[in-house]
């Protein structure tokens, strides 16, 4: 996924605030989608969505903080920026406990808003990058034969070629051939990288 596909999802019950935010962020080069309340966003939500949610704290129905909680419950890690026209401390605290990216008081400083969005996007890109890496790793692992996977597992435990050969009942030379094939398939250059990969694959 490209960073350009990140979207700012705006949830505010005030039509003017919604419209003006969309215009401003659109001119700043962000792609925006608008919702009047939390239910509208949840109804349209897809797991593939990435970007950041800017939600008003007080909304008809579910509040911005409750929207964030519901998103987490559904397995979405979309970062949420809470905005509010009442800067009340208890709700701000609740928002932070719910790990909102930022809590901005209306009318907000534009630089602060941009900063919050950028922070959220950076978090999203890290997440997306990690997910992509993991997906690629999984694909590469899938290309190994069952025997190669066995060899990889033992290598990951730190066994040498001779030891692996003894365990599997094959010659050390065959083990070496397997190892070379595995390194080729996984795109790693040396045994150390191979071990690291195997551990990552085993852990993930």
């Amino acid at each position, binding site marked *: 996924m490209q960073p350009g596909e990140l979207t700012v999802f705006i949830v505010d019950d*005030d039509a*003017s605030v919604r419209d003006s935010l969309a215009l401003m962020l659109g001119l700043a080069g962000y792609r925006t989608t608008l919702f009047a309340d939390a239910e509208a966003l949840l109804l349209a939500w897809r797991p593939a969505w990435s970007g950041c949610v800017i939600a008003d704290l007080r909304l*008809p129905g579910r509040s911005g903080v409750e929207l964030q909680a519901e998103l987490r419950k559904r397995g979405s890690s979309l970062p949420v920026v809470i905005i509010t026209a009442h800067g009340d401390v208890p709700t701000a605290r609740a928002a932070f406990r719910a790990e909102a990216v930022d809590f901005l008081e209306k009318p907000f400083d534009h630089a602060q808003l941009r900063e919050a969005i950028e922070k959220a996007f950076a978090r999203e890109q890290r997440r997306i990058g990690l997910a992509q890496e993991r997906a690629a790793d999984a694909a590469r692992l899938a290309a190994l034969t069952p025997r190669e996977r066995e060899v990889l597992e033992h290598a990951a435990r730190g066994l040498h070629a001779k030891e692996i050969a003894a365990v599997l009942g094959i010659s050390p030379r065959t083990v070496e051939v397997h190892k070379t094939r595995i390194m080729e398939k996984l795109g790693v250059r040396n045994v150390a990288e191979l071990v690291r990969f195997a551990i990552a694959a085993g852990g993930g």
Partner: protein
Amino acid sequence: MSALRYFRDAAVFAPCYLMLDWASYIVPLGPFNITPWNPQPALAIVWMLLGGLQHFPVVAATLFAADLLLRGAPAGYALTVLTAVILSAAYAAIAWSLRLSPRFDAGLRTTRDLTLFFALALAGTALGGAVFVGVLASAEPAFAGGYLEAWLRFWTGDAVGVMVTAPLLLVVADRERRHELGVLFRRAEAWVQMAVLAALLWLIFTGLPGDPALHFYLLFIPLIWIALRGGMAGAVVAAGAVQIGVVIGMHHLGVDWLPAVELQALVAALTLTGLFLGTITDERRRAAQDLRQSLRLAAAGEMAGAIAHEVNQPLTALSNYGQSALALLARPGEAHRVPAVVGKMLGEAERAADVVRRLRDFFRAGTTRLEDLPTYELEAMLRQVARQVIGPRPVELALSLDGGLPALYVDRLQIELVLRNLLANATEALGGGGRIRVSAARHGEDRLRLVVEDDGPGISAEARERVFEPFVSGKPTGMGLGLAISRAIAEAHGGSLEARSGVHGEFHLVLPCSRAS
């Protein structure tokens, strides 16, 4: 203090003292002219309490002069000088200890002030009287046998005189109290009360047969009435009037010493009752006023919070549009989009200005921008507020508002606050979920009654009024101000807000209708 002012004060004090002494010099007892009531010590005490102890020499000299001029100094010059100094010292001691008492207000505004004043006056006059009578008794052996009785009589006269007269003097000397008196006697009620008091006095001394003391209790009735209505200012005047009436009555009847003392004791009891009642009335009235004030502030605070939110929304949009206009201007070929954005900015500015106008009106007029609120708009308001208040909870809102009902004539923002409080209250009462019913019906000629009911447990008869008290809250959070403010708002509209006790929660909100309908 300059010498000139000192002597000018003395020139006011001495004649006043002499006049009081002369007027109260009735039914003197024994060789030393002990009289049943002495208002002049009150003047001496008040003079030194307000003016300071530097007046002590003037007071002592005046006491001596009074004895000399009015009674011919029967005990001889030396003894008269000594007793004048003794009595003046006792009065000075009372004044001095009151001046030293922390937080004592000479305007006698609290029961504490009043109690302190009476206690010190009683103690001071008792002590002064003991020394005074002792000195006289030692100089006049014929009088020594009746020392205790003479002391008691002297003390009664002085103490009663001080208790009745000093509060009147203190009230008259206090600028704020004088204003209260002025306000009080601009009302016809005060004159009616005084007329009743005078008529009763007349009845007791001339109209009814037998000892005036027998019927004296009748005076308590108008006195209590006056104290409850007029507070301390009214009570002080009434007590003074009773004292003057009793003195005139005693002159008129030519009563003996003993009935005179009895009457004075009754006057003292009456005065104490009246003054304490008056002070308590004042205190209660002040507390009610303070509460109203703090309620008003709280209501204003809630309003300000709501309005700040209302102002922040257009400001946010305004600032976003402004930022957008700048971005458009910076781009080649996009400038033609700017006028549309600026148009939106003007709209938002107008929206913000409208809210600010409303805020200003609220603080200026104490209320309110009254306008028509038709039933369909009320319904929309109820639905919107309910959506916000209820949130995702399984609470159903059933509205039954007859379309034929007249429009309300209210301040929208304030009534929205009231409805929000009532619906939040009902939602909370429901706990898990249930139904809230809101209905409206005509209430008399020009009002509507809105009834908000919920399926919750309702409130007990005892809690019915308590829920409107500020800081009484069933919730662990919140100050419990919501219903108190709502009632204040309803009453400011000339309406009312009541809770009905029963198995279900039920609130009745009465509001005025539009004049047009």
